[in-house]
């Protein structure tokens, strides 16, 4: 336990110091934090609960639009803002910007949670692939519909308020990095706390055999909805931060981007190892490094590379990095291995 505390403290210190050590990578590090949040929250459904969702992108996009709309709408008429297409007719003062951001992030986190609670009863009753396809449909439908709504910019997109004139680009990067790192720490603590309670065992029971769990007297629906609401809360928060970071929201390319972010979160969790605490974190980090490192080589071909990557990971590496480590060093994961049994298995191979 003590060793763990030191590890966490070291990571925390490193995380806070990171933008000052690598000043050139501030934006990349912020995106990495958001990606880790998304992977961690996807893992609650896909890994622990066994409900493979493509629909968490819904909450992410919702949070993105809500945060930006609140930030603008608190001080200026929203319709005229989108009409002007991000021209500098309305300028936020620093106080207005940070106030708007704070309120916006709260709204961006809370409203998706409520939405998840409302649609949860209907959607989470679906099982297996019906759930997967239904949530895929939800995400795409949200993108298509928000692309037709005039007040949030329709097809042309929505420019989020530019960062106020305090400290220039450096301060902007640090502000968004600390914000996203804060979200990451919050998410990690929350997820870790959840995973040490009975709640996680219930989620695992739902994954392993839902009917039996129900027969044991667990109100599975209640726990499924709560799990989804937790995911929605952090997804919305991450979306709100990402909207401010990117500075421009498009309905299908940035917010409800099922083709990119929606797949990324699934892929990262699977790459790292579903159903583990550290898996999504490792998976997201490896994935992001790979993406940023190699995307420039594949310039223009990145989606081709992404498609191949998905197929390869899903077919040849479904257990992920943590699963592979677990197979290799089961003792480290607290599993008792019978020596004779292991030898017998090796001989069988």
């Amino acid at each position, binding site marked *: 336990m003590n060793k763990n505390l030191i590890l966490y403290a070291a990571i925390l210190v490193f995380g806070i110091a990171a933008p000052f050590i690598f000043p050139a990578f501030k934006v990349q590090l912020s995106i990495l934090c958001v990606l880790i949040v998304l992977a961690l929250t996807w893992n609650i459904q896909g890994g622990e609960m066994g409900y*493979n969702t493509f629909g968490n992108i819904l909450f992410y996009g919702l949070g993105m639009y809500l945060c930006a709309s609140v930030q603008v709408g608190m001080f200026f008429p929203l319709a005229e803002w989108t009409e002007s297409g991000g021209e500098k007719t309305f300028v936020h003062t620093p106080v207005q910007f940070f106030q708007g951001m704070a309120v916006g992030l709260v709204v961006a986190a809370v409203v998706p949670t409520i939405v998840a609670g409302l649609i949860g009863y*209907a*959607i989470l*009753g*679906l099982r*297996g*692939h*019906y759930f*997967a*396809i*239904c949530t*895929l*449909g*939800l995400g*795409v*439908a949200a993108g*298509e*519909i928000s*692309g*037709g709504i005039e007040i949030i910019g*329709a*097809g042309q997109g929505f420019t989020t308020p530019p960062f106020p004139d305090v400290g220039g680009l450096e301060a902007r990067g640090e502000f968004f990095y600390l914000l996203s790192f804060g979200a990451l720490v919050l998410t990690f603590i929350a997820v870790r706390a959840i995973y040490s309670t009975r709640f996680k065992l219930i989620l695992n029971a739902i994954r392993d055999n839902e009917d039996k769990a129900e027969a044991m007297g667990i109100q599975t629906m209640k726990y499924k909805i709560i799990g989804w609401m937790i995911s929605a809360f952090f997804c919305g928060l991450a979306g709100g931060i990402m909207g401010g970071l990117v500075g421009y929201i498009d309905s299908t390319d940035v917010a409800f981007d099922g*083709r990119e972010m929606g*797949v990324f979160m*699934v892929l990262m969790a*699977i790459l790292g190892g579903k159903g583990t605490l550290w898996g999504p974190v490792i998976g997201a980090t490896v994935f992001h490094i790979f993406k940023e490192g190699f995307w420039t080589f594949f310039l*223009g*071909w990145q*989606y*081709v590379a*992404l*498609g*191949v*990557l*998905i*197929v390869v990971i*899903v*077919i040849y590496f*479904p257990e992920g990095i943590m699963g592979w480590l677990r197979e290799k060093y089961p003792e480290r994961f607290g599993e008792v291995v019978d020596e004779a049994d292991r030898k017998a298995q090796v001989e069988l191979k």
Partner: protein
Amino acid sequence: MDFMVFQYPMITVQACLDGILLGVLFALIAYGMALQWGVMNIINIAQGDLVILGGYIAYFMYLYGIHPAWGVIVAPIIMFFVGVGIYKLVINKVVDRDLFISILATFGISILFMQLMNFAFGADVVLANSGYGTTFLFDNNVVLPNSKIFSAVVSIVFAICLVIYMKKSKLGRAIRATAQNARAAKILGVDTEKVYAATFGINAALCGVAGALISITFTIHPYMGLPYTIRSFMIVIVAGLGNLPGVAMSGMGLGVFEEFADYILGTEFRIGAVFLLLVLILVYRRFKLSRKREYLK
């Protein structure tokens, strides 16, 4: 919102006819979906991209001066081999596994195809002009392009041929046997691996036909694949696996629904309406099933 539909009854007729002609095409794609779902127990997200690829084959024939209607013959032949290729490379590794694995793997194929088509053919919306002219009905109030009628007739012919083939031929019997019980079929000497490859190839060929027809009748674009997948999935779950009249009827129903959504909500919400309908159907199905489960208690 536009309530023209209720003021001018001829628009209703127009929408219904358009929808039915469109729905026949959807039913053809959905038949392929049902085939592979029933036989191999996989859900193919790349279905729509196979359709679009078939469409581009017809479009290229049109560009090189061949009448695009010949694409109906050429596209399925090429697509059959594309399908078998995809099966050999990817699908045969996901057949026996969890359905989600197949969804995700084919999602990867879909992204791959989308982007490759974008490179190869450009991101423009294209249309292969068949030059078939139009038919006017009811005092010129209802306008039907002949190409739509042509495409509906061709898809019905293909569907009937396929049904007869599945009933009569040796391969068709092997496919049906594998769908019923793959293990038993294997024991009785059916080469299931070959059957799976053939099934996926036939599915891809059907997509090729549908795509060629869509490129003649409507427009194609590299990123338009996913809606076709969702439509065919929806038709299959409404009709149920192995229910051919149901597939045809629900395909036409979906077509009519889409035309009305187009008129009433506006074209920009058309795809959104399709996806929302999917969600609604699944949720309706869930409540119906849960009622049945309670009844059992």
